[in-house]
């Protein structure tokens, strides 16, 4: 009983800490930052939701997929068309984008996930290229390379987001909801099935996990998140053009997810923030940026495959053991403490 109560306290403690930090961020960031910084942060939050899809696919499911950017495109164009040509309010556009992207993910995932592992990855690359071709050439639906402009801003009822700080609130709420969803996903049945598939597909199949269905479900969830991200992008920038959905952008998103730690929504947030801020901080070295990305990714994979979050976790466990703060090294600790699901 004591053990259970301590465990619950730790969870509520963590929850309170995170809630306080988020509340502070919600208040401080728009008031203390300049207009330019807020627009950059908004851009990062838009990609954060898409990278959460990568978190589900790669971090929980172990599948490298570059299709995120294509589903962002599907969601973006659906949202743009719904709001420009059908005059729907923002929430309907957002839902429409998510549903459309999810449906496309279902159809495409059902086909592509018949390939195993590395071949699936390559097929998602092919998908990005085909879809980019489609976006550039179907001018009636997408406006081609010139794109579609004049897309109305975020609005709920009479609250219209016509300034960057107001955009920030919408994006902030959307990001938090998406991150909560992805975080809870790990502890559900689907999350555990995904972890089993990631660690050893054959063993998972032997245990009765429907591997194909689990993978397709994960792909659809990632697709829905990407669709949401696309819709957010469109209403944030009031413009959508086909050049945003190239393969290079997809690799950048994967790097964002992996840098911070692909198994944890907080890690993905770190990675997204760092990669988005990097061009701003390194302005004089603008043309070497992508070179640093590439080198950084290679070094990251060798030294820190779990990303910054993984590094942080390693450091914190080492510190706890060193200072005997961990339950396991306390004198008289028993082994009955419930372990966290990895």
């Amino acid at each position, binding site marked *: 009983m004591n053990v259970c109560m301590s465990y619950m306290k730790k969870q509520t403690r963590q929850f309170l800490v995170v809630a306080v930090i988020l509340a502070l961020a919600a208040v401080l960031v728009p008031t203390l930052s300049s207009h330019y910084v807020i627009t950059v942060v908004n851009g990062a939050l838009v990609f954060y939701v898409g990278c959460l899809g990568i978190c589900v696919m790669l971090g929980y499911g172990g599948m490298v997929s570059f299709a995120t950017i294509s589903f962002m495109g599907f969601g973006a164009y659906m949202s743009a068309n719904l709001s420009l040509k059908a005059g729907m309010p923002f929430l309907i556009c957002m839902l429409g984008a998510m549903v459309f992207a999810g449906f496309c993910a279902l159809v495409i995932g059902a086909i592509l996930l018949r390939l195993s592992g590395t071949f699936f990855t*390559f097929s998602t690359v092919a998908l990005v290229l085909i879809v980019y071709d489609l976006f550039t050439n179907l001018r009636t639906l997408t406006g081609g390379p010139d794109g579609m402009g004049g897309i109305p801003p975020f609005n709920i009822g009479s609250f219209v987001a016509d300034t960057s700080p107001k955009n920030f609130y919408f994006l902030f709420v959307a990001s938090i909801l998406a991150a909560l969803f992805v975080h809870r996903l790990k502890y559900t049945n689907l999350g555990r099935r995904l972890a089993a598939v990631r660690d050893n597909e054959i063993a998972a199949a032997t245990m009765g996990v429907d591997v194909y269905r689990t993978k397709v479900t994960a792909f659809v969830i990632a697709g829905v998140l990407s669709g949401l991200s696309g819709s957010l992008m469109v209403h944030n920038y009031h413009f959508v053009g086909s050049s945003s959905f190239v393969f290079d952008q997809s690799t950048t998103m994967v*790097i964002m997810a992996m840098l911070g730690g692909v198994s944890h929504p907080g890690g993905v947030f770190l990675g997204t923030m760092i990669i988005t801020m990097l061009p701003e901080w390194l302005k004089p070295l603008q043309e070497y940026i992508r070179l640093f*990305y590439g080198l*950084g990714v*290679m070094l990251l994979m060798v030294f820190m495959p779990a990303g910054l979050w993984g590094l942080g976790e390693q450091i914190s466990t080492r510190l706890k053991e060193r200072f005997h703060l961990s339950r396991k090294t306390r004198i008289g600790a028993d082994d009955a403490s419930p372990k966290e699901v990895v």
Partner: protein
Amino acid sequence: MNIGLYLQLLVIGLSMGMIYAILAMGIVLLVRAVGVLNFAQGELFMLGAYVCYALTVQLHMPIYAMLIIALLVFVLFGTLFMFAVYWPLRNSKWPATIIISTLGASVVLKEVVKLIWGSVPVVQPPIIKGVLVMGGKIRIEYQYLFIIGIGSLLIIAVFLLFDKLFLGRTMQAAAQDSYAAQLLGIPTVITTALTYIISASLVGIGGWLVSPLFLVSTSLGSFLLKGFAGMVIGGLGDVKGAVIGSLLVGVIESFATLFTATFKDAVVFSVLIIVLIVRPTGFFGQKISEKV
């Protein structure tokens, strides 16, 4: 029916198919040997084109010297590539790390090439100049026939290596089960390095072959996708299937230009998707059995 037009399209299709086949062979060799997909293959292809451009146009070397030095550069590059991308990660828990690492390597290669040679595409003169004119109406450039010739030689050489030579069988053994090969005394470091070297050289030569037809630019890496399409259509993990599938892809792409010019890439990838739906292991595929 315009036989001349079809003949031209067939020749172009076969020669592009040879290029895709070279790329596909490079990928399949690495997949069989180390079990991971190499995203940087397209960039190695592009590097081959740039190296040969540098040697012929910028340094004005005669063709025989250029070939020898280019091969040396590819060998060096293959080894470097292996030690940078594969070697530190060979025992990693996540196979995804190697794929991401090759992705990083592809970005690095692209940016380095851009920094050295600039991002403006450059022109490489054809290796064999001249056009074959048949019947007054059919014009087939010698470059295409040259590509078909060299491509066939390379494919035959790879098959001879793996079928006849002892070295080839050693490499196959190390690829199928590296632990057992090590027990037998086969040095897997050397065989893996050799596989990377052969793969890099193959696609490097492919880059040299294709550079007079398409400008030497940093976007040559996109050829990789068609090579991959050929590999999937022909059968995963099978070199023979990869070659046949790639030739098919080349011919399909060439004949697709009869109907549409903008969507020819989409046609090729739609065929890929159809093959994936109908027969995921490809026509000649054999499942690479996973170890439990």
